[in-house]
């Protein structure tokens, strides 16, 4: 009973927060932001307390279930949401009115997509939640962002039929090699598009170039994190896919890590977004390669790296709001955490991935991933002096001690998890128990 209640509360909390924000934000935006902080913290608390494997039956054999992957995903989404809200601290009233209800509604859909037992339905809900970001822009940003958001909507939408067909075929593959390949041929580009992997990453760049920063971070941190969790769910659902897709995952991951790192280094120093998007792409590549190792330990490394990614993205989102030296530190630490540089939270995950990559005879993949990481390091060094300042009308131009405190805490957390990942590592090991890995 308690397990079911907690699960129900977990599923409905974002919806309640969204409804509250729809009602309250136009009247008192500041208050709705404060309530949102509370709701985000409660969400993280709820999901941590929830009982794994709790289940609520729905229609036609479908159910809401809190699988370990979903629990990890919701925890990460809660953290990302908290970061998103922190970045809205002291934002103009019209932005709070627009973003708060949207973010909560989208989060409701994203969490639901992780909890619902049927993958196709989860996919539908995920897509709806992702597309929400495309058409709830604040009035002042609508005209300039319309073209970009429309293309984003069209491209993301195209993943849906591909994945629906792939899931259907996967259920009846009956040990047929050709069908397996067909499933992969449909699923790989679809997930590549969702995760913005090279060469399917162009939409993330257009998004970064043509929409408000809040939307970019919302999509990269919330939508793409859910995309990763859906990929993990897919691999757990169809264990044979991890075996068949092994080479593809490693090759695609290595390519994204290398080219993403290179492009991040090449990005113009006065461009505040391109390098960041490419750094996230390179990091996605590392994650994907980790899944391709088929190793349980590397899987835990993927989860650790994913956690570090969320923290790093939140820090990068906060960076423009903090004073000069701290801003530089935040940019550098965020980029280095995405790069998996030793000493920061990304390293333990990357270490485990690389350690297990050796077992797979992936001769080129390892140097490519290492080179990608090195190029991201060089990017952080190159951008140290750039001191990226973003002209954005989102915020009221006053000092923001809250953002400063949050950035300091995140910096400390990134270092702490880099030195002592055992604090969180066991939880991540458990989270991936459902995924079939043929190697230890």
């Amino acid at each position, binding site marked *: 009973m308690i397990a079911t209640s907690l699960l129900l509360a977990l599923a409905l909390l974002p919806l309640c927060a969204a409804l509250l924000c729809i009602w309250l934000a136009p009247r008192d935006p500041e208050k709705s932001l404060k309530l949102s902080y509370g709701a985000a913290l409660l969400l993280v608390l709820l999901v941590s307390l929830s009982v794994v494997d709790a289940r609520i039956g729905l229609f036609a054999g479908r159910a809401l279930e809190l699988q370990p992957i979903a629990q990890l995903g919701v925890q990460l989404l809660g953290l990302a949401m908290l970061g998103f809200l922190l970045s809205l601290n002291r934002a103009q009233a019209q932005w709070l009115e627009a973003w708060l209800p949207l973010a909560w509604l989208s989060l409701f859909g994203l969490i639901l997509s992780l909890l619902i037992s049927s993958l*196709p*339905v989860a996919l539908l809900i995920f*897509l709806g939640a992702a*597309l929400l970001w495309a*058409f709830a822009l604040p009035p002042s940003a609508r*005209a300039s*962002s*319309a*073209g970009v*958001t*429309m*293309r984003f*909507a*069209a*491209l993301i939408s*195209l993943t*849906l039929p591909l994945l*629906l*067909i792939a899931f*259907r075929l996967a259920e009846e593959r009956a040990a047929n090699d*050709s*069908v397996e*390949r*067909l499933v*992969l*041929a*449909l699923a*790989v*580009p*679809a997930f*590549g*598009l969702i995760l913005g992997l090279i*060469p*399917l*990453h*162009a939409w993330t*760049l*257009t998004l970064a170039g*043509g929409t408000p920063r809040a939307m970019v971070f919302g999509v990269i941190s919330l939508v793409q994190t859910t995309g990763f969790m859906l990929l993990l769910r897919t691999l757990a659902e169809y264990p044979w896919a991890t075996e068949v897709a092994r*080479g*593809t995952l490693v090759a*695609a991951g290595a390519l994204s890590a290398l080219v993403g790192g290179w*492009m991040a280094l*090449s*990005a113009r120093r006065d461009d505040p977004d391109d390098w960041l998007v490419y750094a996230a792409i390179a990091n996605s590549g590392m994650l994907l390669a980790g899944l391709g190792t088929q190793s349980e330990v590397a899987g835990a*490394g993927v989860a650790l790296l994913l956690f570090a990614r969320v923290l790093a993205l939140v820090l990068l989102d906060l960076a423009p709001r903090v004073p000069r030296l701290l801003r530089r530190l935040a940019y550098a630490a965020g980029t280095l955490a995405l790069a998996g540089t*030793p000493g920061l939270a990304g390293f333990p995950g990357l*270490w485990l991935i*690389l350690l297990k990559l050796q077992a797979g005879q992936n001769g080129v993949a*390892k140097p490519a991933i*290492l*080179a990608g*990481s*090195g190029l991201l*390091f060089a990017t952080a060094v190159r951008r*140290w002096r750039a001191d990226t300042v973003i002209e954005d009308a989102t915020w009221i131009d006053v000092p923001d001690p809250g953002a400063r405190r949050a950035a300091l805490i995140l910096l400390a957390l990134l270092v702490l998890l880099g*030195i002592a990942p*055992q604090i969180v*590592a066991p939880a991540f*090991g458990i989270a991936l128990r459902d995924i079939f890995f043929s190697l230890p």
Partner: protein
Amino acid sequence: MSPLLALASPVSLALAALASLVPASRQRFRPRLLLPLLALVALGAAVTQLAMLWDGTRASLGVTLSPWTARLFTVGPRLEVDALAAYGVLLVCLASLVALLHGLRDESLAIESLAGPLAVASSATLFCAATRSPLGLVSSWLLMDLALFFGAGVRRRGLLAGQLGLLFILAGLMGLADPSLVGGELGSWPRLWLLAAAGIRMGTYPFSWALPRTRMDGVWRAGILRLGPAVAGATLAIRAGASLGSGNGVDPLSLLPGALAMLFGGLLAWLSAERGTALDWAFTAGAGLLLTAAALGSPVGTTVAALLLADLVLGRLAQYLAEDTPGQAPRLAWGLSAASLAGLPPLLGFFARVLLYRALLDGGHGWVLLTAALSTALTAAPFGRLPALSPRTEGPSAWQLLPLGPALPLVLLGLLSGWLPFALSGAEWSPMAGSARALLGLDWRLISALLVPPLLGFAIHRSGWGSRRPPVDAPRRRVSRLLRLTELFDGMRTALIQTGRMIHRSLGLVEGHRTMALTLLAAVGVGLTVLAGAGPLPDPVGPGLDGVGMILWGVATLIAVVNLLVTRRLVTLIILWVSYLLVAAVLLVSGGTPTPAALVVSALVKGLAGIVVVAILSISVVQLGADGAAGAARRAPLLAAEPSDRNETPLRLLALCIAVLLTGSLHATTLQPTLPDMVLRPALTLIVGGVLTAIFARSPLRLAVSVLVALCGFELIYARLDPGLFMTGSLAAFHILFAILASLYVGLALDPETA
């Protein structure tokens, strides 16, 4: 207790670094006494460790640094001090103590300026002790990078060199057969990676930026800042070198880093116009010799590398201290060190070189021997022409004897070298005996390589040849800059950045149509690559298209062509209507009728799609009405064409041809019973046609309709695969339409004030 001994040296030196940072007003201790005392404690701990490990009864002293006890991290970062590590720690502590004593003689020295060098010394001892543990190695490398960057003034280029070394380390560690320990037999590439990383740590050519430059206004600092990291790198190099598999010969490639460092170090030392620079490049050449010895592998390589390490540390330390100390004793110390570093008998460097040169000759690596000989001559020669440093301070006479401290052991150790490296290499012979045997062979190549270059170098040195030339002349500086490869690396960095930027710009990824086109093209490419990656697909089976099938496919192709080429709104709407009719016709003919419930949902979606399209059309009219120049379009919105670029027409035709070829050549081999050609070909044609039109669409109406046409194609596939999927797909279609409509709606500047 004994495992904690491994921590004693790094911790003592770190405490000394922290103590030096305490502001003078808050100091309740005498820093000039406390700092050497802590360095002495570090040295004492190092001596104790070496004594405990020397006889070989105890393999190592270990302590876990971070309790990464989680199941995932079976191997945490550890300090694992064996005889080699203890030897390295001892040398770092010795150099630090002596240099510190020398520096403290200057009453005007700011104590806080010692924090950086002491931090570097601490991290170097930690590094030496951590070289056996993979994670320990990575952690200590990082700490040393930080100490060098913040404490020793290594610049950004040095930081990048350090990071490159760390990547080499990771690449090397990933090749370990046993990931818990660095040691045992290593493959060729992992060994090479680790040797290269060690070379970077030692600041060998071309990564000389990894170490701080020697500044002549405080030259003694180099005794810590350069020697500490060099010893750390040498410890790693010796360990990696000793891991050569028993059945493997020496890979000539592994000798290359050392040979390059010797050759270019020597050349650049010769070309140097300043004493500090000459010392640094001569140091690089010495490090190269050590790297060469380490690359030879055990037991000769290990023995020689250990001897050369002592020679390098003691010799260079004596020179650094002698540089700014007046008097005869420092001059004697300088001369003794230079002679040992050049390999003159009976000093320590001589015996090391005898063994090394013999091994190189026996191994058929004469080119390395030639390089070493040339390097010896070049590094011995330049100091005669460079102006000697005028004494900065007149210290008391006792200080003048300090440089002799490290110099005299070079004689002593040379004479006793049969004893020193015995425990390190495990060799069953002494270097002295080995050297004697090598010399008694009376090989003229060996003897001339040993004696001619240093004598020639010192002759030039004594003559002061070249000292009349101006100290800085343009050609020499140009050659020197060229050899340092600074410009090459800067050029490579710029090329890397510019090429990336050019690719980014030329692809035009952020431009609307290109974004769509390239992304979709990439999606198709990735899909086809995955499909073809696992080998050829099975041959087509089953019947082809009959007459009805051909007609249906022809209609689908017509829809695709017209949709792509005709941009009038009315035609666009007709195309959508015909597409729905085609779906119904194909489903009827092929016999794959979905369930009534699915058909109801589908019909509902079609109705909603109609509403969406009408909404988009009406919003477009509003938009057009707002634009005074589009009056004609306002009067006849249904007949108006969307703005199009005539230059795109050939592109559209080309895309269409490719699409027809692709869809025409596909057969439903894999899914033959479920998806016959009669369904698959029209479906794929609609999908490809719809997607192509979406790429070229310039108005929301065409974009929406083209997506709908593509979804019609998908509907055909859904219907044949699974009725449930047919319903889900229909819902998805509605999703997408709604998103497009909403995107368009929010994109309109409905509020004039915010437009």
